[in-house]
Each structure stands twice: as C-alpha cells, then as structure tokens.
C-alpha cells in the first residue's frame, strides 16, 4: 500500500515538473472546449442567398424582405443582373439563387399559378436540403399572410415541441461530447507517454529493482491520472456551462461513476499502447491514432452511427466513447436515470474489464 502511495507521489512530482504535461492537462482541454464548441456548428443558418427580382413590385419586395429577415438567409453580395443562375451564384458568392420572374404580384393578387425558380449549390448536401426546406417554409408563411385573418386553412397543421434542447443549440449536442473526447485523449496520451518515457530513459529497470511488484507500479502510476482526468472532466463541464450554457439536468454522481469507468478504460488503452512501442514519439502517435480518430469519427460525436456502413457500425461498438457519449448526453441534456443508462454503462464496463485485463497482463509480461 505504502509503495503505491510513493509511486503515485513520484508520478505527481514528475507531472508538476514537466511543463508539457501541465499544458496538456489544463490548457488543452479548455482550448479544445472553446474551439470545438464554437467551431463545430452544424446548424445551417445565415446562408448567402441571392434574389433576382425581375418583378420589382411591392409583393416581390415583401417576399424578399421575409426571406432576408429570417435567420436562415442573408443577402449575398449584389450581383449584376445575369440571366443564368449559375453565373449569378458565382458572381454573388451565393449558395442559392431565387429567381422572381415578372408577373409575381399579379399571380399573388389573382391567386393564379406561378412558379419561382430556386437554384441551389448542391455541393454541400445537408445545406442544400436545408435551403430547400427553409425556402419552402418561408414561402408558405408568406402565402399564409395573404389570407384574410381568421381564415382556417384546411390541411394538416403541425404543432411542434422540442424536448431537452428547446432552443436547438448545436453546442448542447457537441459540448458534452467534447468531455468524452478530451478525457480519452488526456488519459491515453499521458499514460502512454509516461510509461514510454520510463522505458526510454531506462528508469523503469531501476524502479523494478526495488521491492515493488509490477501491479503496484501500475496502480501507483495510474492513480494520479485518474485524479487528473476527474479534474479535467469537471473543468470542461464547468466551462461548458459557463460558456455555452449547456444544461445539467441529471444526476452528477451517476456521471462521476461512469466517468471513472470510462477514464480507466482510456488509461488501459494508454498502457496497452506503451507496452507495444519503444519510443515516446511512437507512443504518442499510436495513442492519438487509436483514441482520437475513432472517438471523433465513429462514436456518434458528430456523425450519426446509424448512417454508416455496417462494418463501421460494428467498429463503433468497441469504441468506449460511443457508450460514454450516450451517458453524458443523456445525463446532461435529458436527465436520464440509471435504468435507461444501465445498458451503455454496462457495455462500457465490459470494455473496461477486457481492456484492463489485457493491459495488465501485457504490462506484467513486458516488464516483470
């Protein structure tokens, strides 16, 4: 027991003296939270739209105003009047061009059929789909306005309600995910560097000549990092609340428990990596590769898992971040309780046990 404490203390001492480690621990998580939180915004708004008004009537101007007043579109640079929508798009730097042919006002007043042309830049598919949807909705609103007040329009009427994130803030979706990513990264990175560093400088051999078992060594080394990961987790969550007003509806303690499991899993990955490589440099490369890439891409952090090919869906099942993400989002945004989260937490636990066992066994054989 005492040996473990000594080793842990030595590790903390090392960490505090290594400026690089300190930067990784404190500065990076906050920087990344800020970066990811602000930069990643999949909400499609403020799309540059060019409107070519060939009708030039009061009605057409009302329509134009409605479009630009909404937060979906803004006025693209004025383009000289071309007739070809593609040319207008290029000249105006717009993502879509709306053509209002002459006769619009007449059609609106006489309620006759009329077609507006909308040319959309299809390069970015989700933006294109959204633009189409917004335009359609805005036109609909415009037409509603022209009905006498109190008219009941036949047809299906939608009354919508959004749960858990009523303002539809993108950051609420991503920022909890950032917690997962950062925790993983830090844990894996730090442990892999640490153990690799000792191997590289040869101090590991020295350590083992002391009456310390490999297991005690491992636990002693890991303990400080668990603590650090916790602190970081809290830091990021606190930051998230302050900067992005992300809610925290559910149980804090439940999150901590699952966080513990998650962190140990990440640490196991770090250990595994460091037992497999000879230099710190390689340790870092592989740690990053094995943690960051799958966690960001395949865990559901940004991209929906169910839309991926089956092979990748299966891979995402063994990415720890996938489960932790469900838990952290569930607790922070939905207030999900134990019954609901037992499944992902359980999977995470299984992953952790497996990884930890392999890591410990490898560590023993490599070192002992």
């Amino acid at each position, binding site marked *: 027991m005492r040996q473990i404490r000594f080793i842990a203390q030595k590790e903390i001492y090392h960490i505090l003296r290594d400026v690089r480690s300190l930067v990784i621990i404190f500065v990076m998580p906050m920087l990344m939270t800020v970066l990811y939180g602000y930069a990643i915004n999949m909400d499609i708004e403020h*799309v540059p739209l060019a409107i070519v008004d060939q009708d030039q009537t009061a009605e057409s101007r009302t329509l134009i105003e409605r479009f630009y007043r909404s937060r979906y579109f803004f006025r693209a640079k004025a383009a000289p009047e071309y007739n070809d929508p593609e040319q207008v798009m290029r000249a105006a730097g717009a993502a879509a061009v709306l053509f209002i042919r002459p006769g619009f006002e007449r059609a609106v007043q006489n309620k006759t059929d009329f077609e507006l042309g909308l040319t959309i830049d299809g390069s970015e598919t989700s933006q294109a789909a959204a633009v189409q949807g917004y335009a359609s909705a805005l036109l609909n609103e415009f037409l509603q306005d022209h009905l006498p007040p109190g008219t009941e329009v036949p047809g299906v009427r939608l009354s919508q309600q959004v749960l858990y994130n009523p303002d539809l803030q993108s950051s609420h979706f991503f920022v909890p995910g950032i917690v997962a990513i950062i925790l993983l990264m830090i844990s894996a990175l730090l442990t892999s560097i640490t153990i690799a560093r000792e191997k590289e400088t040869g101090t590991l051999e020295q350590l083992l000549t002391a009456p310390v078992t490999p297991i005690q060594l491992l636990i002693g080394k890991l303990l400080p990092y668990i603590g650090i990961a916790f602190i970081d987790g809290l830091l990021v969550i606190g930051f998230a609340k302050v900067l992005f007003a992300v809610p925290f509806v559910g149980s804090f303690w439940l999150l901590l428990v699952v966080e513990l499991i998650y962190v140990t899993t990440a640490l196991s990955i770090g250990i595994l990596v460091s037992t497999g490589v000879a230099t710190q440099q390689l340790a870092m490369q592989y740690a990053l590769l094995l943690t960051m890439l799958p966690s960001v891409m395949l865990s559901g952090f940004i991209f929906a898992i169910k839309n991926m090919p089956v092979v990748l869906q299966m891979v995402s099942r063994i990415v720890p971040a996938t489960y932790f993400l469900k838990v952290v989002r569930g607790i922070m945004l939905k207030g999900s309780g134990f019954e609901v989260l037992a499944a992902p937490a359980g999977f995470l636990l299984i992953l952790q046990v497996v990884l930890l066992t392999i890591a410990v066994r490898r560590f023993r054989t490599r070192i002992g």
Partner: protein
Amino acid sequence: MWRPYIGVVRKELIQFLRDKNALRMLFVMPVIQLLLLGYAIQTDVKKLWLDVYDADRTELSRQLIAALQAGDYFVVTDRQVQSERTPVWQLDERFKRGEAEMALIIPPGFAEQLSTNHPAHVGWVADGTDANAARIGIGYAGQILRKFSSDVTGMRPFVEIRSEFLYNPEGESRNFMVPGIVATLLTMITLMLTAMAIVRERELGTLEQVLVTPVTSFTLLFGKLTMFVMAAMLIMGLSLTVGILWFRVPFVGSPILLVVLSLLYLMTTLGVGMFISTITATQQQAMFYAWFFSIFTMLTSGYFTPVANMPIWLQRITLLNPMRYFIEIIRGIMMKGAGVADLSHDILALAVFGIVIFTFSTLRLGKRLA
C-alpha cells in the same frame, strides 16, 4: 553549387525510404483515414426514428403515416396509444433510451377534421439533443405534411418553388467531404514531417558534422524541402486516386491547376513546419505542436462545418487560416470545375500567406542552422 544540393536530396530520400514509420505514416495512414472518413462521414440527416401514436386509426391517418414513411427520411414505428391523452411519459422514455428521435401524435378526429376542410392538428415532438437533426427533421415533416395536405384537400398553394441543384448531382455528401479530407491529410502530414525531421537532426547531433562542411544552411534547407514537396505530392496523388477510383468523387476541373495551387499551399504548410522546428527542442514536442496546430487549422477551415456557421469573431480569425482558402480551391476545382478567375480571391490570399510565412520561416531557420 548544385552538387551539395543533390547530395542532400539523395540523403533525405535514402533516409526516408529506410524509415519504416515515416513510410507507414505517408502511405498507410492517408489511405486508412480516407477510407474511414469517406465512409463514416455522412452529414445527411436521414433514417430518423419516428414513433407514431395514432389515436385516430382511420384511412387518412394511415395515409399520412405512409407518406412519412416513403423515402429515406423517417423510419416509422407504430406505437400503441395507452390513453386518449398524449402519452408524454411513454415518449420521454423512448427518447431517453435513444430508441426514438421524433414522435408524431395524431389525435382522434383527425380524418374528420381534414375531410371537412378544417385544419387538422397533429403534434410533433422532436428530441432536441441533436439540434441539427431535429431542425432538419422538422423541416422534412413540414414539407411532407404540406404535400399531403394539398393532395388530400386538392388545394395547392398557387405559388410554388421549383428547385434545381447544381453540382453534385448524386447528392453525395462524400463528394463534398473527400476533397476536404485530401486537403487535411496534406496539411497534417507535411506539417508534421517538416517539423519533426528538422528537429530530429538537431536532436541526434548529426547537424554538427554537416555544418563543418562548406554547405550553406539554405542549400541544406532546400534539399530537405525538396524531399518534403515530393512526399506531399505523393500523398496528394495517392489520396486523390483513392478518392476518385474508390469513392468515385468527381473531378471536373483542371488537375494541373490543382497541382500548381497545391504547391502554393505547401509553401504555407512547410513554412509553418519549419517555424515549429525553430521553437521546439525534441521531436515529441514538435509533433505535438504540429498536431495541435493541424487540429486548430482543420476545425476552422470550413472542412467540417461551414465557416458561415461560426460566431463572427471566429469567422474573422479564420480569414487568417490558409487552409480555408485551399479548401475552397480544391472543392471548387474538383466539384465545380472552377478556374483561376473564380478562385482569384483565394489564390491571392494563399500567395500572400505562402510567401510571407515561407520567407519568414526560411530566414529564421537558416539563422538557427548557421
């Protein structure tokens, strides 16, 4: 004059071909990443899990459900309605478990209201956790319901929008992402390679022996840079080949223009790599800085998410990000067949950045080496 240069280039080549790690990083990594990202990145919102609570159970309500089911947008699950009231608690649990993302509640009397030309209200609940999916899902629902309404009531809005999509006729989000991935790989790898290679020489002490010879630091530098440029072109060629042959990403514009502009862009990445090598002492530090810088650059370049979505202050910062311009260029050339005139703004920006950063870093590194 050129003999020392040739000597340096040859040495770099030999070392590079012998370095298994570098080779792996150069060839295997891009291919793996490209395949992974190409398949994983699907920004289209589809197959949303929709729970339908139909308390009406009439032919019209079933038709409505069928309309929602048609196409790829929703995956419908028909749920039993326990009571006449909206089963909020049922909903909540399904949402919490992640088994449903949207819910439609059709109250009794729906068909009657609709067929007598009254507005027929339905309730739509969305899980707002994924804000983007929620918003787009609601948009889809709106469109589908409007069409359904006009089909049933026979009343069409007299003004309609006819949409046409330019570029990317298959509507593959991959066509949009893959050029971005190529740009990303180029950036990250050249940055890391440059930073690390130079630091490594310093670390190992081999630089000392070289400096005893009459070779100038600039010859040394340019020899190394030649190597990096060759490696970069190789990466780009490889990733583009994978993208075009495997993913069938279109390439509409001029390859030569792309090569020329990539070389221009490389001035920036190599310059930054060199700069990093002047501020770090170990390879590990160099790699770390390079990696961190790459991430920052990537996130703010419009690769993942459009710049227009970012807060204004961040948008202004991205104006200083060379990768942002390069992404415009590579996407423009590949997807739209853009030419010099269309890209003039981006080309100018890249040129300015490239020349400034490259010159600055070269001079700085040259001084350090001497």
